Each structure stands twice: as structure tokens, then as C-alpha cells.
């Protein structure tokens, strides 16, 4: 019996599910070339490259960027640039902090016994078993209570007043990213062959040298995929950011959500398309990294 034999029903079902997964994405990309400004119906591609933008009612007849009119429009949009900047800033800082402390706690939970270990391990599952909105409004309540009290107690005025912003978003992102980093690194540590470390110790390396020269290089791929996972979680987050952001700390998901509740032009589709492209490249990088890790070490 061929283990890879699948019934035609399974193949047809799989193809249909893939179509279900990709039809909306393909539609989204297609509409980013829409000539219609209102983006309600597809009015064909914007044809010609020309000196200037020619409009006929709500139709774009020609543009210096040709079919890529909405992408050029997007590039000129300062709000998008600001939101993208915020998103990346938050994701970078939150990823670095959550990777460092998440790896530390993975080592602690896998290698050591200590009093608060059960509590530390259990708290990692909170973001998995509790709906994000519950955490979001809880964190919002915490910040508004603490900031309200501090602003009153220290008579803070003007710019010194504490308020929601990039810092609160970053701190909150770390809270839900750390558990994922820890769980991923912990999973890698479980399959770790301790004899390499014992060999290093036998050859006279102290604990720190052993960690730096043996343990860390061996768990590095796990740490990297934990970091990449954390980074994507941060880039992608909507709910926690929604409740913890303030003026000037709009991220891309929040910005797009705001647009959906107002007027939608194909610019949103252009933005989505660029975003999907970035995701595509990131997932490829992640896969390559994991493949390399799965290969034998020798």
C-alpha cells in the first residue's frame, strides 16, 4: 500500500479549501489596480503612463505610475509612513526585550527547580486561554488608573502628563509575546543533548563559557524562530494595540481599521498588497531557518 495515496475526494476537498483561503487575497490584490476611486466596483486597470493624473469623475484615466497609481498614492501618504514607523519601532523593541527575558525564563523552567516555578509556568498559558479583549481592557484599566493617580499625585501638567502612547503599546505587546517565546525555546530545550555541555565542562570550561560557546549556539535557531514569531505577533496585533494606543502611536492594523470605517479607496488594497508581500518574504525566511535547523548538526 502506498502511504501517500489519497482518495480523490480528499484532493478535491483540499483544492476547494485552498481556493477558499486564497480567493479573498487574490481579489484584494486585483482591486489594488482598480481604476475606480470609490473601489465599489472593479472598473478595469488604470491603463496609461502619463505626465499627470487624469480623472474622469471617480475614474482614474491615466497616471504617471500607470496601473500602480494607488501604490504611488500610498508612498505619498504620510499617515501610512508614520503608522508603519510606529509598528516597526514597537515590534523591534518588544521583540528584543521579549526574546531576552523569554529565553531566560525558558532556561529557568527547563533546567532549574525553584519555588515559584509552577506559578511562572502557569502564567505562560494566560494569553492562550483568555480572550485578548479581556487582557486588552484589563491593561487599559491598569494604565488609566495608575496614570490618573500619578498625574494627580505629582501634579503633572502638559507634556509631563502620563498618557497612552508608544511606550504603553510596547510594554503590553511584550506581555503577550513573552509566553510564546518561552514556550518555543522550551520546546527546543526539551530535545537538547546534554552530553555536549558535559563534555565542555569536562574539558575545563566554566558554566558561563559552556553556555556562551556550547548551549547558546545550539539553541540559537530556536531562539531565532521564537524571536521571529514574537516579531510577527507584534506586527499583526490589533486588539491589545487598540486598547493601549494613544495619539501619535497609531500602528498599521489600527490605521487600516480606521480607514474601513470611513472612505475606502484602492489605496487600502495597495497597502494590503505590500503587506502581504512582506509577510510572504518573512514566512519564507522562517521556513528556510527551520529547514536548516531540522538538518543534522554534523
Amino acid at each position: 500500500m502506498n502511504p501517500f495515496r489519497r482518495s480523490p475526494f480528499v484532493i478535491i476537498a483540499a483544492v476547494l479549501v485552498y481556493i477558499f483561503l486564497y480567493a479573498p487575497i487574490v481579489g484584494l490584490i486585483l482591486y489594488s489596480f482598480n481604476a475606480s476611486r470609490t473601489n465599489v466596483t472593479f472598473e478595469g486597470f488604470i491603463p496609461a503612463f502619463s505626465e499627470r493624473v487624469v480623472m474622469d469623475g471617480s475614474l482614474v484615466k491615466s497616471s504617471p505610475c500607470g496601473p500602480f497609481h494607488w501604490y504611488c498614492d500610498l508612498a505619498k501618504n504620510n499617515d501610512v509612513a508614520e503608522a508603519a514607523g510606529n509598528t516597526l519601532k514597537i515590534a523591534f523593541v518588544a521583540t528584543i526585550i521579549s526574546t531576552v527575558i523569554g529565553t531566560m525564563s525558558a532556561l529557568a523552567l527547563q533546567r532549574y527547580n525553584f519555588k515559584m516555578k509552577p506559578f511562572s509556568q502557569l502564567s505562560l498559558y494566560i494569553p492562550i486561554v483568555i480572550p485578548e479583549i479581556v487582557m486588552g481592557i484589563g491593561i487599559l484599566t491598569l494604565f488609566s488608573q495608575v496614570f490618573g493617580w500619578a498625574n494627580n499625585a505629582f501634579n503633572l501638567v502638559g507634556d509631563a502628563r502620563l498618557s497612552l502612547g508608544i511606550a504603553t503599546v510596547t510594554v503590553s505587546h511584550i506581555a503577550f509575546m513573552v509566553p510564546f517565546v518561552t514556550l518555543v525555546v522550551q520546546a527546543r530545550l526539551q530535545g537538547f543533548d546534554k552530553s555536549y555541555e558535559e563534555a565542555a565542562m569536562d574539558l575545563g570550561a566554566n558554566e558561563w563559557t559552556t553556555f556562551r560557546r556550547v548551549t547558546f549556539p545550539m539553541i540559537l535557531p530556536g531562539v531565532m524562530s521564537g524571536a521571529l514569531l514574537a516579531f510577527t505577533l507584534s506586527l499583526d496585533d490589533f486588539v491589545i494595540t487598540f486598547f493601549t494606543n494613544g495619539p501619535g502611536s497609531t500602528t498599521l492594523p489600527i490605521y487600516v481599521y480606521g480607514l474601513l470605517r470611513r472612505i475606502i479607496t484602492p489605496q487600502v488594497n495597495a497597502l494590503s498588497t505590500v503587506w502581504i508581500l512582506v509577510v510572504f518574504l518573512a514566512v519564507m525566511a522562517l521556513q528556510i531557518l527551520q529547514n536548516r535547523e531540522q538538518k543534522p548538526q554534523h
Partner: protein
Amino acid sequence: MLQRLRESKSAQGTFLALPTTIWLFVLLIIPLILTLIVSFGKRTPDGGVIYTFTIDNYTRLFGYSTDCPDGQASCFDPLYVNILGRSLSLAFNTTFFVIGLAYPLAYFIARAHPKQRNFYLFMVLIPLWTNFVIRVYAWMMLLRKEGAINIILGWVMNLFNIPFTPLEMLYTPGAVLVGMVYEFLPFMILPIYTSLEKIEPSLYEAAADLGANAVKTFLRVTLPLSMPGVVAGTILVFIPVMGTFIVSDILGGRQVILVGNLIQRQFLDARDPTFGSAASLILMVMTLIVTYFYTRKFGFGEEIVVA
């Protein structure tokens, strides 16, 4: 201090775990405690909180109302109970359809040639990592009156000379269900795939040798062994569906209000954090109860970490 850290294994462990534990305590556990305290408070007209002990927010949520017709002092108002019930049934329906769609695809990938598996998995990861808000927007474009689905339907009907009026699909409960199924489908595919992939091919051979046909092999070998994946996927789908408010917001309009929308509005429009906190805790308790009974029956799969 440093001396102790160098000598005691336990102190080293505590030191390494401390930053994460403190971070999670301050930003996940303290907020939950605060939410509990606020939910027993009273609102001020400007959206502030008076700390007291009243269960008014909870009785209101479960239908106790003093704003009644024909001069009664109190009556039952099903508004919020209906919202809770609707969220719960939507979460069950979504999970049901997601399992139905995810299982064949996961099976297809797990039984593919190992060289092709990575590609098929990659094809699942792209929609998974495409932003949540963007994916709702994509469905908004497909479902609306002038959208692609109506265009294709109109075209097919035209082919058979059947008169066609575009369907009103956006802003209906069906639109919200489709959106939810689409959003959470990848979260089910990956864990089911992981548990299917672990099954030893020799088990299939053994079943065949013992005279089981394909259907029997599936029912007696494949399905039971893939249950951990289904359980993990259900947890990854059911819990977020219960709390999500974007899908119903964008695809349901004002027609489909879920508990997530209720909570969000209490904090941003209605300015009643005390009622919002109570609703939020009830949401949490509901998901924990369902998860508890579900995992007690089927066990808590390690597949959850993989996704």
C-alpha cells in the same frame, strides 16, 4: 547576594525567571484583578469609577432591568443575555465549520509526499500571517452587493438565462460566520496536521493487513490518533472567536452584536467601564468553563504550542 547566586541552583532559576514572571504578573494578573474590582463598582457620568460593592452590573447583564413598560418596578430584559447566547452559538458554529474544512486539508498535507509537504504548509502560513484586519476587509469586498461573489453569481445565472438580483450578504449573521471561519481556519489546520503527521505509516499497513478497508482505517486509526490536534485547534479557535469584535464590526455592521462589541462599546462609546468589566469577566468565565469541560473530556494537547 552574588555569592548566593553563584552557589544556589534555585536562586539562579529564580533570577532567570524573574523578569518574565514580574512582567506577566503586572500586565496580565493585576489587570484581571483590577477588572474584577471595577466590575463591582459604579460608574460616574464622565466614565469614571466609584469603588464600592454592588452586583448591579452583573444583574443587569443577566437581564434584570428597572426600565420597564407599564410601570413595573423590575422586569426581565433579554438584550444582554441574547448577546451572550449569540456569541456562544457563533463560537460553536465557527468551530464546527472550521473543523470540517481544516480536517481534509490537514489530512491532504499529512499524506502528501514529504518533499511537497513544506510547500503545502507554506500555502497555509501565508493566509495565517496576513493581517487579521486585512482579511476581514477582503471579505467585505467579496460579500458586498457590487462585490465579486454577486458578479460571479450574476454571470453564472445569466449563462442559464435565470433572472438575478444581487444578494444582500454583507451585514448579515452569515457574513460574520464566514468571516470568522476564514479568520481562524489556519489555527485548526496546523495542529491537526501536526498530530496526523506523527502517526506511524506502519499502523495503516497493520490495519490493512488485518482486513480494514479505507473507511474503517480512518475511523478506527486515523481519527482517534488525530484527536489531540482537533482539541488543540478547538481551543485556538473557540477562545478567540468568543472575544473578537472586528469581524462582527466590519461584516455585521449594526446587525450582529457580539459580547466583544458590547465590551468595546462600554469602554469607548458608552463610557461605562464597570459594566464593560463585568461583561469581560463573564466572557472569560464562559470561555474557561467551556475549555475546562472540553479539555477534561479530551485532554490538553501539546499541539497547542506548535501553532
